[in-house]
């Protein structure tokens, strides 16, 4: 389906204080894949992600979701297609109970109560958190919070999932569950992360950003295995790959 395609063409962005964050980013993500966006701190990853559902508008260049270019008038529709999971779950969970939080999006879009309940329950079951439906979100563990934030986004039934550092602050078990969960999705997934081992397990393609530009874009293993390239951009070759491909 064409609305699963995300395309960024020559994207430029400068913050109001003059800091230039993006200097011509282009890429195209097709339906159903998991794409990692990696790069050092300050590379422009988060700024780029914020363009994907219209929190920031391009200064130059354009963002297309499906066939639709991102503008102020299409932003609301694009936000329904592109679900975004933020870095800090506390920013995303603001309702009194888990269920109400997951139902927030569907309620806001004016769906009938039965449909809201169906979607919210389905999303909670999808992430394995249906048992927590009446708990207040701020009392959950970090892993549970992360799963619930993903459910809040799933309840909107987006075609594309965008995630900023999904594995941050998780313990190994929580991280393992997250990886299994993300692996089971059929959505187009765009994941910005420093967790390169997660990329090895989950993503078929890597977009390496640095200094507001795309430094490399290609198959995950090929880029992650390129020690020179990785070091040149403040990254490391993932340890697990050393054992797979010894020199």
């Amino acid at each position, binding site marked *: 389906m064409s609305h699963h395609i995300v395309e960024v063409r020559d994207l430029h962005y400068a913050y109001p204080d003059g800091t230039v964050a993006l200097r011509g980013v282009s890429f195209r993500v097709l339906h159903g894949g998991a794409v990692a966006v990696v790069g050092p701190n300050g590379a422009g990853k988060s700024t780029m992600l*914020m363009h994907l559902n219209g929190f920031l508008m391009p200064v130059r260049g354009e963002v297309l979701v499906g066939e639709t270019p991102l503008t102020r008038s299409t932003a609301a529709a694009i936000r329904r297609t592109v679900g975004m999971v933020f870095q800090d779950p506390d920013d995303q969970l*603001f*309702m*009194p109970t888990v269920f109400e939080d997951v139902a927030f999006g569907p*309620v*806001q879009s004016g769906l009938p109560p039965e449909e809201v*309940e169906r979607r919210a329950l389905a999303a909670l079951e999808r992430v394995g958190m249906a048992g927590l439906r009446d708990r207040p979100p*701020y009392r959950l563990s970090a892993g549970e919070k992360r799963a619930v934030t993903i459910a809040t986004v799933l309840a*909107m039934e987006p075609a594309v999932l965008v995630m900023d550092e999904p594995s941050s602050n998780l313990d190994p078990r929580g991280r393992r569950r997250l990886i299994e969960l993300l692996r089971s999705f059929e959505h187009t997934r765009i994941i910005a992360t420093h967790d390169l081992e997660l990329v090895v397990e989950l993503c078929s393609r890597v977009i390496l950003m640095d200094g507001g530009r795309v430094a490399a874009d290609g198959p995950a293993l090929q880029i992650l295995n390129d020690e020179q390239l990785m070091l040149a951009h403040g990254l490391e070759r993932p340890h697990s790959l050393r054992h797979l491909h010894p020199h």
Partner: protein
Amino acid sequence: MRLANWNEVGRMDDYARQDTPLHRLDARVKAVTTLACIVAVMSFPRYEVSALMPFLFYPMALTGMGRIPFGFILKKIIVASPFALAIAIFNPVFDREAAFMIGPVAVSGGWLSFTSIMLRFVLTVWAALALAACTGMFRLCAGLERLGMPRIFAGQLLFLHRYLFVVAEEGIRMKRALELRSGAIVPVSLRVYGSLVGHLLLRSMGRSERIHRAMVARGFSGGMRALRETALRPADWAFLLGWSAFFVAARAWNIPALIGDLVTGAAP
């Protein structure tokens, strides 16, 4: 990381999640009835004490029927009491005219109005706390919005409640970092505290922006909608009309005095 404040906010929510006939009443009805109680209490003349007593039934009923521990409410009232004391304390100083005698002791008008202010304070704060604890902040805010409160205020109230402990936790983390580096001997200057508070403000602003973004991402367009908008049921009407009738009666007649007259056999 758990804070006293974290637990208190959480406890209020725990009480609000119970399921009693009182909890099932419509939030609008409880809000309006509580407001009626407060308005009636505030409308009495300044020296009134005995006629206020019947109004204690209302918060008492909310607390009892809502299965909210009295100790929880009492603690909150004590915490808030310095504000009322600060207002009331000068009455006995400036108003020394004797109002009536209890045996040989003359009770001045000042002490009478002091008692009246404190009683009103306890009544209104108790009623408001019990209302919040037996309704829940979200339902209360949604109810107030349906009653015509500007949605921006309803939203503010809700988020104040939700993020109180998040901001408090950030403040405590900053204070801990400050203590770790400042040592116990050197007193921390006001300038440092200023910077600390400033940072806390900036962080809160950053957070509120991120929260807003998260809400917009899920289709937020200005109002908080409830999942199901319920209509008022007979029980709601009974609660509203029953208590309102009681407030009107208690405002019109001094019930304790009437009972006193009945008991002592004096003609009214």
